[in-house]
């Protein structure tokens, strides 16, 4: 008997007397029968140069885990293919020699092929594989590929729309700032940045644009040139000496202002050019990861009040990050729901709670209090609501990739 299967069987025995059913994503475990390596939904795959040894040729429908070990010398891949031998149900790539990687898949009853592809070439070493009907409910079959394409298209459209608003807003902000109309610039600062914060993971995917536009002073290393929003923020909300390392803040000269504004406009236009390029895509897994990153941004910078250390307009960014994450969930909803309806229901409930809490503070349209005006209890409640969303949100990518 293969050891991992034994392990899982023993695990089920230990836990069942007490806790079976408590953990929703327990792999379909039928501990009673320890003789068939696949009865508990856990299979091993040994991928060598010449062989693709799967520990069983059939398994009950539900959650299947293929634990793929590469015993060959080449990098290998493992595929679960549909009955036609063409459609990829799920795959795991880039398994280096000696490594083991799990492929976890929701399998419906039917005929399949398993395939190892040592060296990542050819059709792979294939074998027939059967999934029997265990009676376990597995999500409905939709045309996932089409749903994902739709999701990606609508997310890209959202990104383009937000970036277009950002370009317009940035120009107006830069104009006011260069003209010395500080009051107007301060008014435009947070509402304009909202468009940036909603799609920040996209900007981050372009690497250098994010630091050029959004670096905080605290993130600078010795001697590094500073540009972007926060450079201007500090000038508009000039700090007292005690908040500036003990030295008086020197306002930027008109020439420096002009240069800073020009940088802001130029880099923002570069972002717009990139997202409007014909070949720009943002794949479903990136959307899902982006949603999680947006909440990480909130948990890391906004809820601590570190993002907008001079203007204290963190709540605008907070709301924008949450908006952006919510849009990501919305566009992925159909795919995610088919795969894990409970996860989506949890996300709906917790996003609603978080948005309600934020709405108590204000809105992008009506404005928010500055972050330094919030009571500690309010901040803690917001932080708890962010954590509440982030935990299930961290499961979204796997849910999406599991459905693909």
């Amino acid at each position, binding site marked *: 008997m293969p050891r991992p299967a034994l392990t899982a069987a023993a695990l089920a025995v230990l836990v*069942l007397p*007490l806790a079976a059913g408590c953990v929703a994503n327990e792999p379909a475990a039928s501990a009673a029968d320890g003789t068939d390596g696949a009865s508990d939904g856990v299979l091993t795959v040994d991928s060598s140069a010449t062989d693709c040894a799967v520990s069983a040729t059939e398994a009950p429908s539900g959650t299947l885990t293929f634990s793929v070990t590469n015993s060959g010398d080449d990098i290998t891949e493992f595929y679960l293919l549909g009955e036609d031998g063409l459609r990829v149900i799920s795959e795991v790539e880039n398994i280096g020699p000696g490594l083991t990687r799990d492929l976890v898949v929701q399998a419906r009853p039917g005929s399949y092929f398993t395939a190892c592809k040592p060296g990542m070439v050819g059709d792979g070493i294939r074998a027939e594989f059967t999934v029997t009907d265990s009676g376990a409910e597995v999500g409905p079959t939709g045309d996932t590929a089409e749903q994902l394409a739709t999701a990606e298209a609508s997310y890209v459209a959202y990104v383009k729309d937000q970036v277009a608003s950002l370009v317009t807003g940035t120009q107006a902000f830069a104009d006011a700032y260069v003209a010395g109309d500080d009051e107007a610039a301060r008014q435009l600062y947070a509402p304009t940045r909202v468009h940036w914060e909603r799609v920040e993971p996209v900007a981050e995917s372009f690497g250098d644009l994010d630091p050029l536009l959004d670096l905080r002073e605290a993130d600078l290393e010795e001697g590094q040139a500073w540009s972007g929003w926060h450079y201007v923020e500090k000038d508009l909300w000039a700090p007292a000496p005690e908040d500036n390392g003990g030295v008086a803040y020197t306002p930027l000269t008109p020439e420096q202002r002009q240069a800073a504004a020009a940088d802001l406009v130029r880099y923002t236009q570069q972002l717009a050019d990139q997202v409007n390029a014909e070949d720009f895509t943002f794949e479903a897994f990136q959307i899902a990861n982006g949603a999680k990153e947006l909440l990480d941004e909130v948990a890391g910078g906004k809820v601590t009040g570190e993002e907008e250390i001079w203007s204290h307009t963190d709540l605008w960014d907070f709301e924008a990050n949450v908006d952006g994450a919510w849009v990501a969930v919305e566009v992925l909803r159909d795919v995610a729901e088919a795969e894990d309806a409970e996860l989506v229901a949890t996300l709906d409930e917790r996003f609603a709670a978080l948005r309600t809490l934020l709405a108590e503070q204000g809105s992008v349209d009506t404005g928010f209090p500055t972050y330094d005006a919030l009571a500690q209890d309010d901040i803690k409640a917001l932080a708890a609501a962010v954590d509440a969303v982030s935990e299930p949100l961290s499961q979204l*990518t796997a849910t999406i990739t599991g459905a693909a």
Partner: protein
Amino acid sequence: MTTDDTTPSPDGAAPAEQAARGLSRRGLLGLAGGGAAALGLAATAGFAGGRAQAATSAPAAPARPGTYAFTGEHQAGIVTPAQDRMHLAAFDLTTTSREDLVELLRTWTAMAARLTQGLAAGPFGPASGPYDAPPDDTGEVLDLPPAGLTITFAFGRSLFVGTPAPDGTPGVDRFGLADRLPAALVELPRFAQDALEPQRCDGDLVVQACADDPQVAVHAIRNLSRAAFGTATLRWSQLGYGRTSSTSTTQTTPRNLFGFKDGTANLKAEDPEALAEHVWVQAADAEAGRAETGADSAWLTGGTYLVARRIRMTIETWDRTSLREQEALIGRTKGEGAPLSGGTEFSEPDLEATGRGGLPLVATDSHVRLAHPSTNGGVRMLRRGYNFTDGNDALGRLDAGLFFLAFVRDPRTHYIPMQSTLSRQDALMEYLRHTGSGLYAVPPGVPDGAEPGEAFVGQALFT
């Protein structure tokens, strides 16, 4: 890690433990499933009826080296021989849904049952599962032995009746539990010289994780906290090291940061009659409580109460105190721990004995005299505290002291009177500041062989 013979890895099992160390925790499990040697160990380390039952009623009963059974009549982590390290965490519920609360307790129970047996927090473990999902276990104990981990759950008064506002407005009963509030789960009174910091006090739920490896204890709290996101949020937590009490006669008496043996007269696991009298809540207590308040607290029978006090010691000034004064303040010798009235560590202090000038050998304001059962109507506690050192304060003094934990049958008789006396009269108070405080009801254990998916800690409270 201690090497005394009181830890759950006695010498007899060392080879199995060492052999197992070469494997991952998942691999180890496969071995333990059929490990006869491990069963033998459980018998060696066994101490309570519940454990023996577990071994007979369920063949898969936890029997791994270095583990304690999670199920049983009482929760583990109370009379379990005190481990070396502790991480205690208090949580506030962010939900007002009774269903969510029950779900959290179910999830925690399932997770604790796994963790205490050296398993990963979730079924996949830290290094497998869907590649695009975060692992269901955080992974820092992957190659560590179970380290005798116990996880003990308890409920604060606020779970039942909410938290009163500063102006005295009563709190809100969010979960429909007010009529189940045990009469003894009172608000602790303000004791003389209390310097409590609200961020170190109270909480709806409390989880005590004890292990012989700090990383194992912290791992447990970390993973339980993670499971609580969206339902409960961490209110405060405390790390402790160097157990300051022995809860078994097989353990030597440890020392607190004053350098004195602590807990010599502690209740011990081997004295079931005293435990029944002083620690475990009895059925009669629920009846008395019902007569007193009308609330039905039968759910707590077989449980106990946990008193937690974070007691900072001003060790810098203590260290400038003469040995004469130190011993006089404690009432015991520093080396042996014998009462100043004579004898050895386990000699009963003779509070009547006088020396030159007719002065009592054990001073009237000494700690031993004031805390002694004979001064407190014969009541005793099961103490299970730890030392702590949380960095230092702004004045360059260590923020160190004793995290006092005691399990008692009724805090109104077994803790409050004694602490009132100590806070007022104990000369040692000059070197102590109580900075944190909590009182919690500890429900009984999850029964051995409970129905799958049904049982959870505190279940009787919700039925």
